[in-house]
């Protein structure tokens, strides 16, 4: 097949779902690869993220192909008689199929498949990216006055009230006075 005939074939037959399938297939390789190349993240986090991204794209690529193809087949049900109108209907349905796949079906499939799958592989407690870890504690923090302790041993620079010294402080230090 020459370059000219290949270009003519693409020019005549290009479909709206080709670029989305091509990008999802390329991301199937490159997204996990880029994640594994990140030097800042810990090894376990990288493996977890790369696997999650790989599975996401593994779901996305065939969905981007299947949905527009099925949508275009549905145009047959509409029984459009005009050939030009049928061509336009197929194209429009393929575009809509791609959008539905991107905005509804793929996010839905991913939340239904990826999370349970990842939970099966990784024990929940070992999971590095747990949403719940980000939740801010709602407990009221009681402020306690902080006692400043001199690092040089010169206690005279601090007011006496801040560090009350009593014999009880020496009780269990192993220090013996007068013995």
């Amino acid at each position: 097949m020459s370059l000219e005939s290949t270009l003519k074939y693409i020019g005549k037959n290009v479909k709206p779902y080709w670029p989305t399938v091509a990008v999802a297939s390329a991301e199937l390789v490159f997204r996990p690869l880029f994640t594994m190349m990140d030097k800042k993240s810990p090894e376990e986090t990288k493996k977890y993220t790369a696997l999650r991204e790989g599975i996401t794209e593994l779901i996305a690529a065939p969905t981007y192909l299947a949905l527009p193809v099925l949508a275009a087949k549905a145009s047959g049900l509409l029984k459009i008689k005009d050939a030009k109108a049928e061509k336009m209907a197929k194209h429009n349905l393929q575009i809509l199929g791609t959008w539905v796949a991107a905005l509804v079906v793929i996010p839905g499939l991913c939340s239904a498949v990826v999370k349970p799958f990842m939970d099966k592989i990784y024990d929940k407690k070992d999971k590095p990216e747990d949403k719940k870890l980000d939740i801010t504690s709602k407990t009221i923090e009681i402020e306690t006055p902080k006692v400043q302790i001199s690092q040089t041993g010169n206690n005279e620079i601090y007011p006496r009230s801040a560090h009350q010294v009593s014999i009880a402080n020496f009780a269990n230090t192993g220090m013996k006075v007068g013995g």
Partner: protein
Amino acid sequence: MSIQNIISNPTFYNMTQGTATQMGIKTGLNSVARPGFILMDGDIDPHTKKFSASKEFLYQAISLAMYLGIIIPVFQKGAYSLAQKHFKDSAVLKAFNNPEQFKAFKKLTDSEKIQRLAELSKKVISNPEEFRAFKKLTPEQRTEEIAKLKAKSQSSDVFTRKNITEEDEALANGIVETSSLLGTVIGLAIVAPLTATKLIHPILKGIGLDKDKKAPEQPVQQLNQQA
């Protein structure tokens, strides 16, 4: 209006032609929908939600700007000028100097295409010198000149539906679409993840959003009052 008419809407069909347009619309929709889904998630705390939604929006917006502003024009124009050198005898690549001109032509109806090609041919024969020479001719000579130009219609200087057929249009369209597909894959799967992610964090910091920064805590006095 029947469902058939809605589904086969010609305006929607014309608006969604071409790989670059389709991917541009899809990325634009993603830039709205993905942050929207994050903001609707009830399990995440407000600060994380705001941070993740802003991050997702910025990623999609930067990718879209790079894709439509740099990657697609570079790939399309580069591939088109390479093709003009490779397919020297192609009338369609001579008639249209750049991919934008060809894309505008492709959207026309059959009769509009004939008219457009006649305009392009006129441009070739009516350059100032030729036009002045043509004006000096006697009516008989002019008729002869027109006959000569008609005979020339097979050559690539005069463009008609004889030398720019649907097959030739498919070639030019193939050049535009193949370069767009390559640009899409390289741009959205390789260039955008490597560059956009590096731009996001400085922008987020600039607008006061930090991953580790928690939402401001309520003053103790206020909490005591609530209790």
